[in-house]
């Protein structure tokens, strides 16, 4: 059956709306996050602080509203795409990216509603404020991912290639999408953990120490910095910085761990389901195809993270670094393997 181009167009428009909603939500989250500090710095009476907090809270809630709206557009875009092409809407890289980000946003919204997560992050059960501070950091990669998907990876609507035409696409690919979306969220939380952990150890933020190293007299190629940059560094490097508004490193670490303990079994399942499918379609369950190999490397990376988290001298920063390396392997698995290396999984649909 030929694709319904009208519906496909509606799907594209809905996706654009979703991207804009997420982008505005990101600014909202960022504003709320940053204001937490500004009010304190400005001084002023208790009343001013209270008022400022209330305003920030409103902005934050607005951002959540925008996220939910964006999620609605996003979901509708995926559904209309599926209706337009008369099949599951995850048959090429563009569609896969849309699904992965949908999962990531869904997980973020789910965390927002969880009292246990709220308590774990700041001890306040009633408000979602503590989870909202993750908002900007989740929205940023989502917008980036969708931007890439809508431009570079975009594939015109069409049917599936025969190798994909199996009910296993509903099992294997859905598991891969879910795990990837969750790993994306855990990756964001892990980055925040590393930043906060650095702050808690009393070290200046990474960019400050890097710039300081560049500016040091020891460096032969001294970089001259404009007065504006210097002022910005002064502001952000003041002890406290934005880092103070983040939940404690320990809480972020635990949250990242919990998301990974969800994603890891799903990823394992995706690999196993993939092996069973490969046995149906290509006559062998495992053939060290680049996609298979990088999925396995990703799996080993997260397995190493889980072990490191339980090894004295490795938990904390080192374990977190391992989990980010594993996420890097996942990104190689996704972007590099699909576009650069030729293998059996060349379904990108881009030329």
């Amino acid at each position: 059956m030929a694709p319904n181009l009208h519906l496909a167009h509606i799907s594209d428009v809905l996706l654009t709306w979703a991207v804009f909603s997420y982008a505005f939500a990101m600014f909202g989250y960022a504003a709320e996050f940053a204001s937490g500090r500004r009010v304190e710095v400005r001084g002023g009476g208790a009343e001013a602080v209270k008022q400022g907090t209330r305003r920030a809270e409103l902005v934050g809630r607005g951002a959540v509203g925008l996220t939910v709206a964006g999620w609605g557009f996003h979901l509708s875009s995926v559904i209309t795409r599926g209706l337009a092409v008369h099949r599951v809407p995850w048959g090429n890289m563009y569609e896969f990216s849309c699904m992965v980000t949908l999962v990531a946003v869904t997980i973020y919204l789910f965390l927002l509603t969880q009292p246990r997560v709220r308590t774990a992050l700041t001890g306040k059960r009633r408000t979602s404020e503590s989870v909202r501070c993750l908002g900007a950091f989740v929205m940023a990669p989502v917008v980036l991912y969708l931007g890439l998907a809508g431009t570079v990876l975009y594939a015109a609507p069409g049917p599936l290639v025969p190798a994909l035409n199996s009910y296993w696409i509903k099992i294997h690919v859905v598991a891969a999408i879910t795990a990837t979306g969750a790993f994306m969220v855990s990756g964001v939380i892990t980055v925040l953990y590393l930043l906060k952990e650095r702050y808690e150890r009393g070290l200046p933020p990474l960019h400050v120490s890097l710039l300081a190293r560049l500016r040091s007299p020891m460096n032969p190629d001294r970089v001259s910095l404009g007065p504006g940059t210097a002022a910005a560094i002064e502001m952000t490097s003041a002890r406290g910085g934005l880092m103070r508004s983040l939940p404690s490193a320990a809480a972020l670490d635990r949250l990242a761990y919990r998301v990974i303990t969800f994603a890891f079994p799903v990823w394992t399942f995706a690999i196993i389901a993939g092996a069973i499918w490969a046995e149906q379609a290509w006559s062998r369950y495992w053939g060290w195809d680049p996609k298979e190999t990088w999925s396995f490397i990703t799996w080993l990376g997260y397995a190493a993270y889980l072990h490191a988290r339980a090894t004295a001298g490795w938990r904390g920063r080192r374990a977190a670094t391992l989990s980010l390396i594993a996420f890097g392997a996942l990104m190689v698995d996704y972007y590099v393997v699909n576009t650069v290396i030729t293998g059996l999984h060349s379904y990108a649909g881009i030329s």
Partner: protein
Amino acid sequence: MSETLVNDELTPLSTAPTPVAPGGRRGVRPTGRRLWRQLTSMRTALLLLTLLALAAIPGTFIPQRGLDPVKVDNFLRAHPHLGPLMNHLSLFDVFAAPWFAAIYLLLFVSLVGCLVPRIRLHAAALRRRAPDAPRHLMRLSASTRWETDSTPGEVADAARAVLKSSHWRVDRRDEADGVTTVAAERGYLRETGNLIFHVSLLVLLVGIALTGLYGYKGTVLVTDGGSFANAREFYDVFEPSRLFSDSQLAPFSFSLDKFTAAYQPNGEPTSFNARIHYRTSPSAAAVPYDIEVNHPLNIDGAKVFLVGHGYSLRISVTNAAGHTVYDGDTPFLPDDSLFTSHGVVKIPDLDGRKQLGLTGFFYPTEGFGSNGSVTSIYPAPDRPVLSLAAWSGDLGMKSGVPQSVYSLNVAALKNIGTTQLTPGKSWRLRDGTKVTFRGVDQWATFQVAHEPGKRTLLAGAILVIAGLLASLRVRRRRFWLRAVPASSGDSGGRTVVMAAGLARGEAESFGVELEDLVGRIAPDDGAQAGAPGTEES
């Protein structure tokens, strides 16, 4: 070897082996033991996991024999110095390389060394009773206290009933002075799952080994109307495993009625179908079946897959004397995704003296490529054209050197003409030989595979998932309750109850569960105590 091992050592919920005290006997044995302890430590496992991941990376960037042998040959030709060195280091067979095997075998040895003592310990832990309550319950971060008119015994019974109904392992103890304590524990499934997960990795290894030792696979090209019987000599390529014997080949056979492919307007394929008739034994009745890309034929423990397709051209050659010297389906091999294909016909005996060779290119839909040359512009045979060149001379078929049936070395041959034919058309060579392009058929390649370890692998995989879910999602936790009777004095004649709990890994989150448990143990009194402490530790 697992996430919980070292964690256990550092928390009060430990079930892990206590490190053996160093020292003891001197000499070779302690060194061996120290090495063994090193090998089975978590740190080594971590190192080996990382090494295995790193070792797999070259296998995805360097061409691999198992995936694309042609690419490896090209690489070797392009790098005459580096290539052989890389070959020597097994870099073209990374996943079969000794150093790759060394890493994963060490990992499995480390795993076994870690698992055996842990299984023993866990079995012991499963039989042990819940540990005593700590002296100062209220010091735990998740704890609560309330007063009641019930006696300590009644409180303990109520607690026991509630805990039992939620599948806790409960132990009631009566201490001196009428004090009653209840100790409860649950979440053993975490460690059970953890052990199952790691044991099932070994099961997977067994499954892989079974297939590697007893399986076979082979490929065969069958043209429309042709047939195949499952015996070694009928395969084009046959790869037996180490312990394979021919008696393992099931006596089935099949014939290909017709292969069909459908394409989108842009040339992308939408479906492939091979209509066959198969027999499970030579005397059995023929059964029709459609083999498709995701729909193999299961037969007698083997599977038949559709793995490739192409065009087979019906060509006949008649010599000047009018005798037909060649008439058959000639498979052409595709060169690109639009099925521009090449093939040859070799006639070693044209008329008793001369030999004739034909080399051809076939275009299912003839058109012009971007550089102006003739090529196929669509994979379906919409406008089929066969471009032929004829050669005379010694084809070299009597030299005894095996030759490919898809290529002809024309270096020593003389070109005696070229032409373009459409189906049904003939071409008469100067010497009177007539070549007729009679029509277009298709061929399909089938892979037959027998993997005896498949069931073991599936069982292992299911256990892997189940074990992983239990070990990552179940939380080990403990709950204690102490009821002090009124006679102790400081409570104004009422029983004082203290309850507290611990959850491993997420201490702060036990508060919610504690609140729920206390609410059920003492629906009236407990509620007065207010929400139990849920502050983060």
